[in-house]
Protein backbone atom coordinates (compact mmCIF):
# COMPACT_ATOMS: atom_id res chain seq x y z
CA UNK A 1 0.00 0.00 0.00
CA UNK A 2 1.46 3.29 -1.06
CA UNK A 3 0.60 6.24 1.22
CA UNK A 4 -0.61 9.29 -0.70
CA UNK A 5 -1.33 11.50 2.27
CA UNK A 6 0.81 11.65 5.38
CA UNK A 7 -0.03 14.15 8.13
CA UNK A 8 2.51 14.45 10.95
CA UNK A 9 1.75 16.48 14.10
CA UNK A 10 -0.53 18.84 12.21
CA UNK A 11 -1.74 21.71 14.38
CA UNK A 12 -3.90 24.59 13.19
CA UNK A 13 -4.42 27.65 15.35
CA UNK A 14 -6.75 30.44 14.30
CA UNK A 15 -5.70 33.76 15.74
CA UNK A 16 -8.18 36.56 16.04
CA UNK A 17 -6.76 39.45 18.03
CA UNK A 18 -6.14 38.27 21.60
CA UNK A 19 -8.17 35.11 21.12
CA UNK A 20 -6.68 32.00 19.63
CA UNK A 21 -8.47 28.81 18.75
CA UNK A 22 -6.82 25.45 18.24
CA UNK A 23 -8.87 23.88 15.48
CA UNK A 24 -6.55 20.86 15.07
CA UNK A 25 -4.31 19.38 17.74
CA UNK A 26 -1.32 17.24 16.70
CA UNK A 27 -3.12 15.26 14.05
CA UNK A 28 -1.31 12.19 12.69
CA UNK A 29 -2.99 10.52 9.77
CA UNK A 30 -1.94 8.39 6.81
CA UNK A 31 -4.19 7.68 3.86
CA UNK A 32 -3.13 5.07 1.37
CA UNK A 33 -3.75 4.81 -2.33
CA UNK A 34 -7.14 3.23 -2.99
CA UNK A 35 -8.61 4.15 0.39
CA UNK A 36 -12.19 5.35 0.75
CA UNK A 37 -12.14 7.29 4.01
CA UNK A 38 -15.01 9.11 5.66
CA UNK A 39 -14.19 11.85 8.15
CA UNK A 40 -17.05 12.51 10.51
CA UNK A 41 -17.62 14.76 13.43
CA UNK A 42 -19.95 17.38 14.81
CA UNK A 43 -19.86 20.89 13.39
CA UNK A 44 -16.93 22.81 14.86
CA UNK A 45 -15.00 19.58 15.45
CA UNK A 46 -12.24 20.60 13.02
CA UNK A 47 -13.15 18.26 10.17
CA UNK A 48 -13.51 21.12 7.69
CA UNK A 49 -10.14 22.54 8.71
CA UNK A 50 -8.57 19.13 8.16
CA UNK A 51 -10.26 18.93 4.78
CA UNK A 52 -8.93 22.38 3.78
CA UNK A 53 -5.41 21.42 4.77
CA UNK A 54 -5.56 18.15 2.83
CA UNK A 55 -6.99 20.11 -0.11
CA UNK A 56 -4.08 22.60 0.03
CA UNK A 57 -6.53 25.45 0.55
CA UNK A 58 -5.19 26.15 4.02
CA UNK A 59 -1.74 25.96 5.58
CA UNK A 60 -1.19 24.25 8.96
CA UNK A 61 0.34 26.30 11.78
CA UNK A 62 2.81 23.50 12.46
CA UNK A 63 3.49 19.94 11.41
CA UNK A 64 4.27 18.40 8.05
CA UNK A 65 1.98 17.34 5.26
CA UNK A 66 3.27 15.09 2.50
CA UNK A 67 1.03 14.85 -0.52
CA UNK A 68 2.21 12.04 -2.78
CA UNK A 69 5.67 12.37 -1.16
CA UNK A 70 5.81 16.13 -1.79
CA UNK A 71 6.47 18.28 1.28
CA UNK A 72 3.85 21.00 0.91
CA UNK A 73 4.83 23.53 3.58
CA UNK A 74 7.49 25.19 1.43
CA UNK A 75 5.41 25.60 -1.71
CA UNK A 76 4.29 29.02 -2.96
CA UNK A 77 0.78 29.97 -4.15
CA UNK A 78 1.45 29.03 -7.76
CA UNK A 79 2.93 25.63 -6.89
CA UNK A 80 0.00 24.92 -4.56
CA UNK A 81 -2.44 25.87 -7.33
CA UNK A 82 -0.68 23.47 -9.71
CA UNK A 83 -0.79 20.61 -7.18
CA UNK A 84 -4.50 21.22 -6.50
CA UNK A 85 -5.14 21.14 -10.20
CA UNK A 86 -3.20 17.92 -10.82
CA UNK A 87 -3.66 15.80 -7.70
CA UNK A 88 -6.98 16.72 -6.16
CA UNK A 89 -10.56 16.75 -7.38
CA UNK A 90 -12.89 18.82 -5.22
CA UNK A 91 -16.57 18.04 -4.68
CA UNK A 92 -18.58 20.54 -2.64
CA UNK A 93 -21.82 20.41 -0.69
CA UNK A 94 -23.38 23.19 -2.80
CA UNK A 95 -21.97 21.82 -6.10
CA UNK A 96 -20.37 25.22 -6.96
CA UNK A 97 -21.10 25.03 -10.66
CA UNK A 98 -20.78 28.26 -12.66
CA UNK A 99 -24.25 29.59 -13.43
CA UNK A 100 -25.24 30.35 -17.06
CA UNK A 101 -22.53 27.91 -18.15
CA UNK A 102 -23.18 24.55 -19.79
CA UNK A 103 -22.34 21.26 -18.08
CA UNK A 104 -19.52 20.52 -20.51
CA UNK A 105 -17.95 23.97 -20.00
CA UNK A 106 -18.24 23.56 -16.24
CA UNK A 107 -16.50 20.20 -16.40
CA UNK A 108 -13.77 21.55 -18.70
CA UNK A 109 -12.96 24.45 -16.34
CA UNK A 110 -10.02 22.86 -14.43
CA UNK A 111 -8.37 21.96 -17.75
CA UNK A 112 -8.09 25.68 -18.62
CA UNK A 113 -5.70 26.01 -15.68
CA UNK A 114 -3.85 22.86 -16.79
CA UNK A 115 -3.15 24.76 -20.04
CA UNK A 116 -4.87 22.21 -22.25
CA UNK A 117 -6.12 23.15 -25.73
CA UNK A 118 -9.83 23.82 -26.15
CA UNK A 119 -10.54 20.85 -28.39
CA UNK A 120 -8.88 18.42 -25.99
CA UNK A 121 -10.63 20.07 -23.04
CA UNK A 122 -14.05 19.40 -24.54
CA UNK A 123 -13.10 15.82 -25.46
CA UNK A 124 -11.96 15.09 -21.91
CA UNK A 125 -15.02 16.80 -20.43
CA UNK A 126 -17.27 14.60 -22.59
CA UNK A 127 -15.54 11.43 -21.41
CA UNK A 128 -15.78 12.62 -17.82
CA UNK A 129 -19.51 13.38 -18.08
CA UNK A 130 -19.99 9.93 -19.60
CA UNK A 131 -18.39 8.40 -16.47
CA UNK A 132 -21.17 9.88 -14.33
CA UNK A 133 -23.93 8.98 -16.79
CA UNK A 134 -24.66 12.47 -18.09
CA UNK A 135 -23.55 12.22 -21.71
CA UNK A 136 -27.02 13.42 -22.75
CA UNK A 137 -26.78 16.65 -20.72
CA UNK A 138 -23.65 18.22 -22.22
CA UNK A 139 -25.30 21.50 -23.12
CA UNK A 140 -27.61 21.78 -20.10
CA UNK A 141 -27.12 24.70 -17.75
CA UNK A 142 -27.07 24.04 -13.98
CA UNK A 143 -30.56 25.53 -13.51
CA UNK A 144 -31.93 22.91 -15.92
CA UNK A 145 -30.53 20.03 -13.87
CA UNK A 146 -31.73 18.38 -10.67
CA UNK A 147 -29.59 18.51 -7.53
CA UNK A 148 -28.35 14.96 -8.05
CA UNK A 149 -27.47 15.72 -11.67
CA UNK A 150 -25.66 18.91 -10.66
CA UNK A 151 -23.57 16.98 -8.14
CA UNK A 152 -22.75 14.43 -10.85
CA UNK A 153 -21.56 17.29 -13.09
CA UNK A 154 -19.39 18.44 -10.16
CA UNK A 155 -17.97 14.88 -9.82
CA UNK A 156 -17.22 14.86 -13.55
CA UNK A 157 -15.40 18.19 -13.08
CA UNK A 158 -13.40 16.67 -10.22
CA UNK A 159 -12.48 13.66 -12.40
CA UNK A 160 -11.56 15.55 -15.56
CA UNK A 161 -7.91 16.18 -14.63
CA UNK A 162 -7.61 12.51 -13.60
CA UNK A 163 -6.44 13.33 -10.05
CA UNK A 164 -5.26 10.71 -7.53
CA UNK A 165 -7.53 11.97 -4.80
CA UNK A 166 -11.18 12.97 -4.70
CA UNK A 167 -11.94 15.31 -1.82
CA UNK A 168 -15.65 15.56 -1.08
CA UNK A 169 -17.06 18.01 1.47
CA UNK A 170 -20.58 16.92 2.54
CA UNK A 171 -21.32 15.75 -1.03
CA UNK A 172 -24.84 14.65 -0.14
CA UNK A 173 -25.68 17.50 2.21
CA UNK A 174 -27.94 19.28 -0.29
CA UNK A 175 -29.47 16.13 -1.79
CA UNK A 176 -32.43 13.90 -1.02
CA UNK A 177 -31.59 10.40 0.20
CA UNK A 178 -32.18 8.75 -3.19
CA UNK A 179 -29.81 11.11 -5.03
CA UNK A 180 -27.38 10.82 -2.12
CA UNK A 181 -27.40 7.07 -2.49
CA UNK A 182 -26.70 7.37 -6.23
CA UNK A 183 -23.72 9.61 -5.53
CA UNK A 184 -22.39 7.02 -3.08
CA UNK A 185 -22.71 4.31 -5.73
CA UNK A 186 -20.62 6.44 -8.07
CA UNK A 187 -18.01 6.97 -5.34
CA UNK A 188 -17.84 3.24 -4.66
CA UNK A 189 -17.39 2.48 -8.34
CA UNK A 190 -14.66 5.12 -8.73
CA UNK A 191 -12.94 3.75 -5.62
CA UNK A 192 -13.06 0.25 -7.03
CA UNK A 193 -11.42 1.63 -10.18
CA UNK A 194 -8.57 2.94 -8.05
CA UNK A 195 -9.42 6.47 -6.94
CA UNK A 196 -8.53 7.49 -3.40
CA UNK A 197 -11.58 9.15 -1.87
CA UNK A 198 -11.75 11.30 1.24
CA UNK A 199 -15.24 12.36 2.21
CA UNK A 200 -16.39 14.63 4.98
CA UNK A 201 -19.86 14.00 6.28
CA UNK A 202 -21.82 14.35 9.48
CA UNK A 203 -24.38 11.71 8.42
CA UNK A 204 -23.58 8.20 9.77
CA UNK A 205 -25.75 6.72 6.99
CA UNK A 206 -23.46 8.20 4.35
CA UNK A 207 -20.24 7.47 6.24
CA UNK A 208 -21.18 3.80 6.25
CA UNK A 209 -20.47 3.61 2.50
CA UNK A 210 -16.76 4.29 3.12
CA UNK A 211 -14.24 1.53 3.85
CA UNK A 212 -12.84 3.42 6.82
CA UNK A 213 -14.37 5.99 9.16
CA UNK A 214 -12.36 8.55 11.10
CA UNK A 215 -14.16 10.58 13.76
CA UNK A 216 -12.88 13.95 14.86
CA UNK A 217 -13.82 15.69 18.07
CA UNK A 218 -12.46 19.00 19.33
CA UNK A 219 -9.54 18.88 16.92
CA UNK A 220 -8.47 15.36 17.81
CA UNK A 221 -8.87 12.06 16.00
CA UNK A 222 -10.78 9.65 18.25
Amino acid at each position, binding site marked *: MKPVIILKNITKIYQSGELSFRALKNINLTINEGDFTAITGASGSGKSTLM*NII*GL*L*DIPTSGTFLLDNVETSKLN*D*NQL*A*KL*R*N*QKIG*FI*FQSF*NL*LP*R*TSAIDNVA*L*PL*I*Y*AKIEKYERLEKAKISLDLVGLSDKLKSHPNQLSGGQQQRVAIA*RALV*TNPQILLADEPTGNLDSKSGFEIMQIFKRLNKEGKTIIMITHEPEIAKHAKKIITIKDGDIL
Partner: protein
Amino acid sequence: MSSALRSILANRLRSILTILGIVIGVTSVILLISLVSGLNSFITSQIEGLGSNLIFVIPGRIGGSRSPGGIQANRLILQDATNLQKQLLDQAKVSAVVQRTSTLKYNNKLDRGVAIFGVQGNYPDIISVKLTSGKFFNDSEANSGRKVVVIGPTVASTLFGLTSPIGQSVDIGGLKYKVIGLTKSRGSTFGIDQDNSVLIPLTAAQKQFGLDRLNTIYISANNSEQVRKVQAEATSILKKRLSEDDFSVQTQEQTLSTISQITSVLSLALGGIAAISLIVGGIGIMNIMLVSVTERTKEIGLRKALGARPTDIRNQFLIEAITLSGLGGLIGITLGISLSLIIGLFLTTTITWWSIVLSFGFSTLVGILFGVMPAIRAARLNPIQALRYE
Protein backbone atom coordinates in the same frame (compact mmCIF):
# COMPACT_ATOMS: atom_id res chain seq x y z
CA MET B 1 -10.11 35.34 -22.28
CA SER B 2 -13.15 33.24 -23.08
CA SER B 3 -14.35 33.41 -19.48
CA ALA B 4 -14.03 37.21 -19.57
CA LEU B 5 -16.12 37.38 -22.75
CA ARG B 6 -18.68 34.97 -21.36
CA SER B 7 -19.10 37.08 -18.26
CA ILE B 8 -19.59 40.23 -20.37
CA LEU B 9 -22.19 38.53 -22.55
CA ALA B 10 -23.96 36.97 -19.57
CA ASN B 11 -24.50 40.46 -18.11
CA ARG B 12 -25.41 42.32 -21.29
CA LEU B 13 -27.37 45.22 -19.79
CA ARG B 14 -24.81 45.78 -17.07
CA SER B 15 -21.97 45.68 -19.60
CA ILE B 16 -23.70 48.20 -21.85
CA LEU B 17 -24.32 50.60 -18.98
CA THR B 18 -20.74 50.14 -17.82
CA ILE B 19 -19.23 51.12 -21.15
CA LEU B 20 -21.65 53.99 -21.76
CA GLY B 21 -19.24 56.48 -20.19
CA ILE B 22 -16.40 55.30 -22.43
CA VAL B 23 -18.69 55.33 -25.48
CA ILE B 24 -19.76 58.93 -24.81
CA GLY B 25 -16.18 59.99 -24.11
CA VAL B 26 -14.71 58.48 -27.27
CA THR B 27 -17.63 59.69 -29.39
CA SER B 28 -17.27 63.27 -28.17
CA VAL B 29 -13.49 63.33 -28.57
CA ILE B 30 -13.77 62.22 -32.20
CA LEU B 31 -16.79 64.42 -32.95
CA LEU B 32 -15.43 67.60 -31.37
CA ILE B 33 -12.01 67.23 -32.94
CA SER B 34 -13.57 66.57 -36.34
CA LEU B 35 -15.71 69.70 -35.95
CA VAL B 36 -12.75 71.87 -35.01
CA SER B 37 -10.59 70.40 -37.78
CA GLY B 38 -13.49 70.99 -40.16
CA LEU B 39 -13.73 74.60 -39.01
CA ASN B 40 -9.99 74.98 -39.55
CA SER B 41 -10.01 73.52 -43.03
CA PHE B 42 -13.10 75.53 -43.95
CA ILE B 43 -11.57 78.85 -42.90
CA THR B 44 -8.31 77.90 -44.56
CA SER B 45 -10.01 77.09 -47.83
CA GLN B 46 -12.04 80.31 -47.65
CA ILE B 47 -8.92 82.38 -47.15
CA GLU B 48 -6.94 80.50 -49.77
CA GLY B 49 -9.93 80.80 -52.09
CA LEU B 50 -9.80 84.59 -51.85
CA GLY B 51 -6.85 84.76 -54.19
CA SER B 52 -3.11 84.32 -54.21
CA ASN B 53 -0.25 86.39 -52.82
CA LEU B 54 -2.70 88.32 -50.67
CA ILE B 55 -1.81 90.83 -47.99
CA PHE B 56 -4.49 92.26 -45.69
CA VAL B 57 -4.39 95.69 -44.13
CA ILE B 58 -6.83 95.93 -41.24
CA PRO B 59 -7.40 98.74 -38.76
CA GLY B 60 -5.93 98.43 -35.25
CA ARG B 61 -2.90 96.46 -34.17
CA ILE B 62 -3.02 92.71 -33.67
CA GLY B 63 -1.61 92.04 -30.21
CA GLY B 64 -1.61 95.76 -29.46
CA SER B 65 -3.46 97.77 -26.84
CA ARG B 66 -6.43 98.36 -29.11
CA SER B 67 -8.30 95.48 -30.61
CA PRO B 68 -8.06 95.09 -34.39
CA GLY B 69 -11.05 96.31 -36.27
CA GLY B 70 -12.34 98.34 -33.35
CA ILE B 71 -14.40 101.39 -34.28
CA GLN B 72 -12.32 103.83 -32.28
CA ALA B 73 -9.12 102.34 -33.57
CA ASN B 74 -10.08 102.72 -37.20
CA ARG B 75 -8.10 105.50 -38.85
CA LEU B 76 -7.77 103.82 -42.25
CA ILE B 77 -9.12 106.02 -45.04
CA LEU B 78 -9.29 105.85 -48.83
CA GLN B 79 -6.23 108.10 -49.06
CA ASP B 80 -4.15 105.29 -47.52
CA ALA B 81 -5.29 102.86 -50.20
CA THR B 82 -4.58 105.44 -52.91
CA ASN B 83 -1.09 106.07 -51.49
CA LEU B 84 -0.36 102.36 -51.42
CA GLN B 85 -1.56 101.89 -55.01
CA LYS B 86 0.54 104.80 -56.24
CA GLN B 87 3.76 103.68 -54.57
CA LEU B 88 3.38 99.95 -55.17
CA LEU B 89 2.16 100.40 -58.74
CA ASP B 90 4.70 98.10 -60.39
CA GLN B 91 4.62 95.45 -57.67
CA ALA B 92 1.03 94.98 -56.55
CA LYS B 93 -2.66 95.78 -56.94
CA VAL B 94 -4.55 97.51 -54.13
CA SER B 95 -8.27 97.53 -53.39
CA ALA B 96 -10.10 99.18 -50.49
CA VAL B 97 -13.27 97.73 -48.95
CA VAL B 98 -16.00 99.18 -46.72
CA GLN B 99 -18.76 97.09 -45.27
CA ARG B 100 -22.13 97.39 -43.56
CA THR B 101 -25.40 95.57 -43.24
CA SER B 102 -28.65 96.82 -44.76
CA THR B 103 -32.05 95.80 -46.11
CA LEU B 104 -32.75 95.25 -49.81
CA LYS B 105 -36.14 95.81 -51.40
CA TYR B 106 -37.59 94.80 -54.76
CA ASN B 107 -41.32 95.48 -55.34
CA ASN B 108 -42.89 94.15 -52.11
CA LYS B 109 -40.10 91.71 -51.32
CA LEU B 110 -37.58 92.39 -48.55
CA ASP B 111 -34.20 90.86 -47.82
CA ARG B 112 -32.92 91.89 -44.42
CA GLY B 113 -29.43 91.64 -42.96
CA VAL B 114 -27.63 91.63 -46.29
CA ALA B 115 -23.89 92.28 -46.13
CA ILE B 116 -23.13 95.31 -48.35
CA PHE B 117 -19.52 95.51 -49.57
CA GLY B 118 -18.30 98.77 -51.11
CA VAL B 119 -15.39 97.85 -53.38
CA GLN B 120 -13.27 99.33 -56.17
CA GLY B 121 -13.36 98.30 -59.82
CA ASN B 122 -10.14 96.24 -59.56
CA TYR B 123 -11.66 94.07 -56.77
CA PRO B 124 -12.16 91.00 -59.02
CA ASP B 125 -8.47 91.17 -60.02
CA ILE B 126 -7.48 90.71 -56.38
CA ILE B 127 -10.24 88.66 -54.75
CA SER B 128 -11.60 85.87 -56.90
CA VAL B 129 -15.21 86.72 -57.69
CA LYS B 130 -16.93 84.39 -60.14
CA LEU B 131 -20.03 85.59 -61.96
CA THR B 132 -22.76 83.33 -63.29
CA SER B 133 -24.27 86.16 -65.39
CA GLY B 134 -23.82 89.87 -66.09
CA LYS B 135 -20.56 91.71 -65.47
CA PHE B 136 -18.62 93.48 -62.75
CA PHE B 137 -18.43 97.29 -62.60
CA ASN B 138 -15.24 98.80 -64.02
CA ASP B 139 -13.12 101.54 -62.45
CA SER B 140 -14.88 104.41 -64.18
CA GLU B 141 -18.32 103.13 -63.18
CA ALA B 142 -17.06 102.70 -59.65
CA ASN B 143 -15.41 106.07 -59.36
CA SER B 144 -18.23 108.04 -60.98
CA GLY B 145 -20.51 106.95 -58.15
CA ARG B 146 -22.97 105.18 -60.41
CA LYS B 147 -25.51 103.14 -58.53
CA VAL B 148 -24.88 99.61 -59.83
CA VAL B 149 -24.81 96.35 -57.85
CA VAL B 150 -23.50 92.78 -58.20
CA ILE B 151 -25.68 90.49 -56.06
CA GLY B 152 -25.17 87.10 -54.42
CA PRO B 153 -27.37 84.08 -55.30
CA THR B 154 -29.33 84.16 -52.01
CA VAL B 155 -30.26 87.81 -52.55
CA ALA B 156 -31.26 86.99 -56.14
CA SER B 157 -33.53 84.10 -55.16
CA THR B 158 -35.09 86.02 -52.23
CA LEU B 159 -35.93 89.12 -54.26
CA PHE B 160 -36.32 87.87 -57.82
CA GLY B 161 -37.20 84.21 -57.47
CA LEU B 162 -36.58 82.48 -60.77
CA THR B 163 -36.62 85.60 -62.97
CA SER B 164 -33.33 87.08 -64.10
CA PRO B 165 -32.24 89.97 -61.87
CA ILE B 166 -29.93 91.53 -64.47
CA GLY B 167 -31.13 95.01 -65.49
CA GLN B 168 -33.65 95.24 -62.64
CA SER B 169 -33.64 98.06 -60.13
CA VAL B 170 -33.26 97.16 -56.46
CA ASP B 171 -33.66 99.40 -53.40
CA ILE B 172 -30.65 99.37 -51.07
CA GLY B 173 -31.18 101.37 -47.88
CA GLY B 174 -33.54 103.75 -49.66
CA LEU B 175 -31.65 104.32 -52.95
CA LYS B 176 -32.19 102.55 -56.27
CA TYR B 177 -29.33 100.44 -57.67
CA LYS B 178 -29.24 98.72 -61.02
CA VAL B 179 -28.33 95.00 -60.94
CA ILE B 180 -25.50 94.34 -63.39
CA GLY B 181 -24.12 90.98 -62.21
CA LEU B 182 -24.84 87.80 -60.26
CA THR B 183 -22.08 85.94 -58.36
CA LYS B 184 -21.57 82.21 -58.10
CA SER B 185 -22.63 80.42 -54.93
CA ARG B 186 -20.02 80.02 -52.20
CA GLY B 187 -22.37 77.95 -50.02
CA SER B 188 -23.49 78.34 -46.47
CA THR B 189 -21.32 77.23 -43.62
CA PHE B 190 -21.73 77.24 -39.84
CA GLY B 191 -25.15 78.78 -40.25
CA ILE B 192 -23.80 81.87 -42.04
CA ASP B 193 -25.03 82.32 -45.59
CA GLN B 194 -22.01 83.31 -47.69
CA ASP B 195 -24.27 84.28 -50.58
CA ASN B 196 -26.50 86.78 -48.79
CA SER B 197 -24.23 89.68 -49.81
CA VAL B 198 -23.94 92.34 -52.53
CA LEU B 199 -21.05 94.33 -54.01
CA ILE B 200 -21.50 98.04 -54.83
CA PRO B 201 -18.99 100.73 -55.93
CA LEU B 202 -16.88 102.07 -53.06
CA THR B 203 -17.72 105.72 -53.74
CA ALA B 204 -21.46 105.06 -53.78
CA ALA B 205 -21.24 103.09 -50.52
CA GLN B 206 -19.17 105.80 -48.82
CA LYS B 207 -21.52 108.54 -49.97
CA GLN B 208 -24.76 106.76 -49.10
CA PHE B 209 -23.75 105.30 -45.75
CA GLY B 210 -21.17 107.91 -44.71
CA LEU B 211 -18.42 105.35 -44.48
CA ASP B 212 -15.15 107.26 -44.63
CA ARG B 213 -13.22 104.58 -42.73
CA LEU B 214 -12.11 101.43 -44.54
CA ASN B 215 -12.72 97.92 -43.20
CA THR B 216 -9.92 96.29 -45.18
CA ILE B 217 -7.36 97.11 -47.81
CA TYR B 218 -6.45 94.09 -49.94
CA ILE B 219 -3.04 94.06 -51.57
CA SER B 220 -2.16 91.41 -54.12
CA ALA B 221 1.55 91.06 -54.90
CA ASN B 222 2.33 90.41 -58.53
CA ASN B 223 4.41 87.37 -57.68
CA SER B 224 4.78 85.20 -54.65
CA GLU B 225 8.47 85.97 -53.96
CA GLN B 226 7.58 89.60 -53.44
CA VAL B 227 4.88 89.09 -50.79
CA ARG B 228 7.21 89.74 -47.84
CA LYS B 229 8.83 92.75 -49.55
CA VAL B 230 5.46 94.28 -50.45
CA GLN B 231 4.28 93.71 -46.87
CA ALA B 232 7.32 95.60 -45.51
CA GLU B 233 6.92 98.43 -48.00
CA ALA B 234 3.20 98.75 -47.35
CA THR B 235 3.92 99.01 -43.64
CA SER B 236 6.44 101.82 -44.12
CA ILE B 237 4.15 103.68 -46.55
CA LEU B 238 1.25 103.54 -44.08
CA LYS B 239 3.48 104.63 -41.20
CA LYS B 240 4.06 108.01 -42.87
CA ARG B 241 0.52 109.02 -42.02
CA LEU B 242 -0.54 106.53 -39.32
CA SER B 243 0.97 105.31 -36.08
CA GLU B 244 1.95 101.69 -35.46
CA ASP B 245 -1.19 101.06 -33.43
CA ASP B 246 -3.54 102.16 -36.18
CA PHE B 247 -3.15 99.24 -38.57
CA SER B 248 -1.87 95.73 -39.10
CA VAL B 249 -0.45 94.29 -42.28
CA GLN B 250 -0.74 90.53 -42.45
CA THR B 251 0.03 88.11 -45.21
CA GLN B 252 -2.34 85.29 -46.06
CA GLU B 253 0.18 82.85 -44.61
CA GLN B 254 0.33 84.70 -41.30
CA THR B 255 -3.45 84.84 -41.11
CA LEU B 256 -3.65 81.11 -41.75
CA SER B 257 -1.15 80.33 -39.03
CA THR B 258 -3.04 82.58 -36.58
CA ILE B 259 -6.23 80.68 -37.38
CA SER B 260 -4.62 77.29 -37.03
CA GLN B 261 -3.23 78.40 -33.67
CA ILE B 262 -6.73 79.33 -32.53
CA THR B 263 -8.27 76.08 -33.75
CA SER B 264 -5.57 73.92 -32.20
CA VAL B 265 -6.18 75.57 -28.83
CA LEU B 266 -9.89 74.96 -29.40
CA SER B 267 -9.13 71.31 -30.24
CA LEU B 268 -7.17 70.85 -27.05
CA ALA B 269 -9.80 72.50 -24.87
CA LEU B 270 -12.73 70.56 -26.31
CA GLY B 271 -10.74 67.32 -26.44
CA GLY B 272 -9.79 67.85 -22.79
CA ILE B 273 -13.41 68.25 -21.78
CA ALA B 274 -14.30 65.07 -23.66
CA ALA B 275 -11.37 63.27 -22.03
CA ILE B 276 -12.88 64.00 -18.63
CA SER B 277 -15.86 61.86 -19.57
CA LEU B 278 -13.42 59.09 -20.50
CA ILE B 279 -12.02 59.23 -16.98
CA VAL B 280 -15.53 59.24 -15.52
CA GLY B 281 -16.24 56.22 -17.72
CA GLY B 282 -13.13 54.53 -16.34
CA ILE B 283 -14.32 55.07 -12.78
CA GLY B 284 -17.63 53.49 -13.85
CA ILE B 285 -15.74 50.44 -15.08
CA MET B 286 -13.78 50.20 -11.84
CA ASN B 287 -16.99 50.44 -9.84
CA ILE B 288 -18.64 47.65 -11.79
CA MET B 289 -15.52 45.50 -11.66
CA LEU B 290 -15.35 45.88 -7.87
CA VAL B 291 -19.02 44.91 -7.60
CA SER B 292 -18.33 42.01 -9.91
CA VAL B 293 -15.43 40.79 -7.75
CA THR B 294 -17.72 40.79 -4.70
CA GLU B 295 -20.57 39.21 -6.63
CA ARG B 296 -18.33 36.45 -7.93
CA THR B 297 -16.36 35.81 -4.74
CA LYS B 298 -17.60 32.23 -4.66
CA GLU B 299 -16.67 31.71 -8.30
CA ILE B 300 -13.15 33.03 -7.61
CA GLY B 301 -12.82 30.64 -4.65
CA LEU B 302 -13.95 27.76 -6.81
CA ARG B 303 -11.54 28.63 -9.60
CA LYS B 304 -8.69 28.78 -7.08
CA ALA B 305 -9.67 25.38 -5.67
CA LEU B 306 -9.68 23.97 -9.21
CA GLY B 307 -6.12 25.14 -9.75
CA ALA B 308 -6.26 28.78 -10.87
CA ARG B 309 -3.16 30.70 -9.84
CA PRO B 310 -3.53 34.23 -8.47
CA THR B 311 -2.21 35.53 -11.80
CA ASP B 312 -4.92 33.58 -13.67
CA ILE B 313 -7.62 35.29 -11.61
CA ARG B 314 -5.97 38.70 -11.94
CA ASN B 315 -5.69 38.32 -15.71
CA GLN B 316 -9.31 37.23 -16.02
CA PHE B 317 -10.57 40.41 -14.36
CA LEU B 318 -8.04 42.62 -16.09
CA ILE B 319 -8.96 41.22 -19.49
CA GLU B 320 -12.62 41.73 -18.66
CA ALA B 321 -11.99 45.41 -17.84
CA ILE B 322 -9.86 45.95 -20.93
CA THR B 323 -12.38 44.16 -23.14
CA LEU B 324 -15.18 46.34 -21.74
CA SER B 325 -13.29 49.57 -22.30
CA GLY B 326 -12.00 48.45 -25.70
CA LEU B 327 -15.53 47.52 -26.73
CA GLY B 328 -16.71 50.92 -25.50
CA GLY B 329 -13.92 52.51 -27.50
CA LEU B 330 -14.92 50.67 -30.68
CA ILE B 331 -18.59 51.60 -30.29
CA GLY B 332 -17.52 55.18 -29.56
CA ILE B 333 -15.36 55.30 -32.68
CA THR B 334 -18.22 53.97 -34.80
CA LEU B 335 -20.64 56.50 -33.31
CA GLY B 336 -18.14 59.35 -33.51
CA ILE B 337 -17.37 58.68 -37.17
CA SER B 338 -21.02 58.25 -38.16
CA LEU B 339 -22.12 61.38 -36.29
CA SER B 340 -19.25 63.32 -37.87
CA LEU B 341 -20.34 62.10 -41.30
CA ILE B 342 -23.99 63.01 -40.61
CA ILE B 343 -23.05 66.48 -39.35
CA GLY B 344 -20.70 66.70 -42.33
CA LEU B 345 -23.80 66.93 -44.52
CA PHE B 346 -24.52 70.37 -43.00
CA LEU B 347 -21.18 71.61 -41.69
CA THR B 348 -17.60 70.96 -42.64
CA THR B 349 -16.19 68.13 -40.53
CA THR B 350 -12.80 66.50 -40.93
CA ILE B 351 -12.30 63.14 -39.18
CA THR B 352 -8.69 62.95 -38.11
CA TRP B 353 -6.94 59.62 -37.64
CA TRP B 354 -5.02 60.88 -34.62
CA SER B 355 -8.23 61.64 -32.74
CA ILE B 356 -9.33 58.03 -33.30
CA VAL B 357 -5.98 56.59 -32.21
CA LEU B 358 -5.84 58.96 -29.23
CA SER B 359 -9.32 58.27 -27.93
CA PHE B 360 -9.09 54.50 -28.43
CA GLY B 361 -5.67 54.37 -26.80
CA PHE B 362 -6.91 56.49 -23.94
CA SER B 363 -10.03 54.38 -23.39
CA THR B 364 -7.98 51.17 -23.34
CA LEU B 365 -5.53 52.76 -20.93
CA VAL B 366 -8.45 53.76 -18.70
CA GLY B 367 -9.61 50.13 -18.74
CA ILE B 368 -6.18 48.92 -17.65
CA LEU B 369 -5.73 51.61 -15.00
CA PHE B 370 -9.13 51.18 -13.44
CA GLY B 371 -9.22 47.40 -13.93
CA VAL B 372 -5.98 46.68 -12.10
CA MET B 373 -7.29 47.43 -8.60
CA PRO B 374 -10.35 45.13 -8.74
CA ALA B 375 -8.25 42.46 -10.45
CA ILE B 376 -5.62 42.49 -7.73
CA ARG B 377 -8.31 42.39 -5.09
CA ALA B 378 -9.84 39.33 -6.78
CA ALA B 379 -6.47 37.59 -7.05
CA ARG B 380 -5.80 38.05 -3.33
CA LEU B 381 -9.04 36.49 -2.10
CA ASN B 382 -8.55 33.60 0.30
CA PRO B 383 -10.06 30.53 -1.40
CA ILE B 384 -11.64 29.09 1.76
CA GLN B 385 -13.40 32.30 2.71
CA ALA B 386 -14.32 32.89 -0.93
CA LEU B 387 -15.87 29.41 -1.18
CA ARG B 388 -17.89 29.95 1.98
CA TYR B 389 -19.08 33.40 0.82
CA GLU B 390 -22.83 33.55 0.28
